[in-house]
């Protein structure tokens, strides 16, 4: 499960740029073959990123998202795991 510590580890592997109301993520990479792997966040991803960035506790984030997006907490938990997996894949690392 993602926690704030390994989120900080993930975050350190990216450069983030806010363009309009969207976020663009570019992973630091040690190989030229990864250079074109850019990442843009949808509304849900941006919500997770910004709230974890702001230091919100994981369980509080799940409840908050559940209310905001009207989705069951278990589904939110699953979505956050997928989000973590996607970010980790981009960094070619396992957290």
């Amino acid at each position, binding site marked *: 499960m993602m926690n704030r510590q390994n989120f900080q580890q993930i975050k350190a592997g990216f*450069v983030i740029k806010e363009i309009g109301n969207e976020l*663009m993520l*570019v992973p*630091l*990479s*040690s*190989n*030229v073959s990864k250079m074109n792997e*850019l990442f*843009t966040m949808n509304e849900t991803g941006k919500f997770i990123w910004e709230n974890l960035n702001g230091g919100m506790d994981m369980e509080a984030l799940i409840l908050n998202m559940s209310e905001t997006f009207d989705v069951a907490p278990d589904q939110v938990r699953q979505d956050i795991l997928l989000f973590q997996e996607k970010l980790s894949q981009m960094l070619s690392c396992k957290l």
Partner: protein
Amino acid sequence: MNLVVADFLIQINAGFPLQIDAGYVPYIQVHNTNCPDVIIECRQGLPIGLFDDCKILFEANNGHHKFYTIVRYGEGFGFLIYSQQFPDEIQQIALLDKDLKQWEIYTRPELDGSIDPMKYPMGPIVLYYLVIKNEAIMIHASGIFDGEKGRLFTGFSGTGKSTMAKLWKHNGSTIINDDRLIIRKNGNRYVMHNTPMYYADQPMSASVDAIHLIRHFPKNTTQCIKGVKAVSSVMAFCIQNNFDKLFIQNCIGFISGLCTSVRVYETGFVPDTSIVSFLNGHED
């Protein structure tokens, strides 16, 4: 010897004769007293063990062929440049200071004893580290100028960058280059410049008034894109060594400004000259 590429002054110092690729010859300026943007000190021969125990930061290979490896060297960077003719043979060793301004390039002499400090891929590497510190980008793209507007066509390999350039040339436009361009900001406008290739071509530049992300398609079509989609799409075709946050920040910052000033389009095209009038009629 001085080279002027994209209005950047590259000063090359050597205490011995240099053999420079034909593609660089049109960029030589003998008399230029401006302050150089980058200085290259040429050395003969390859030092042994210089990068022992240095941390590898970045490797450029395409799965079949190694181009170069970058290591941390003191506060700056060290480069192992591999021969493109003889795999695994080191062609050059280069050091770049932390300010990205001063190079020392050690080169294995050619069979005739000559030294080419800019031998591929060293030349494009020097240009890349020049652009990232100077608010510019280097991009895989073709660029044309029709006398009024400059257009840049970028996309994956095989999407038609060279074809598009030829179609515009057929209609009277000038090809700035059909493979690789440097884009710089000049006042309120963005300017594309060609760079030395393997063949000799005169230095050229033109304004960038539209950027097209191209692909072959059964009919001509174009759609303006904006925001993060435009920035990320253009960035995907830029030459990047993304092991350093500052490099990425500089690149994103520049492209964000570019995509704010210049319209970006997703363009599908039929490979005939109908695309010329189509784009003339459909760009904003």
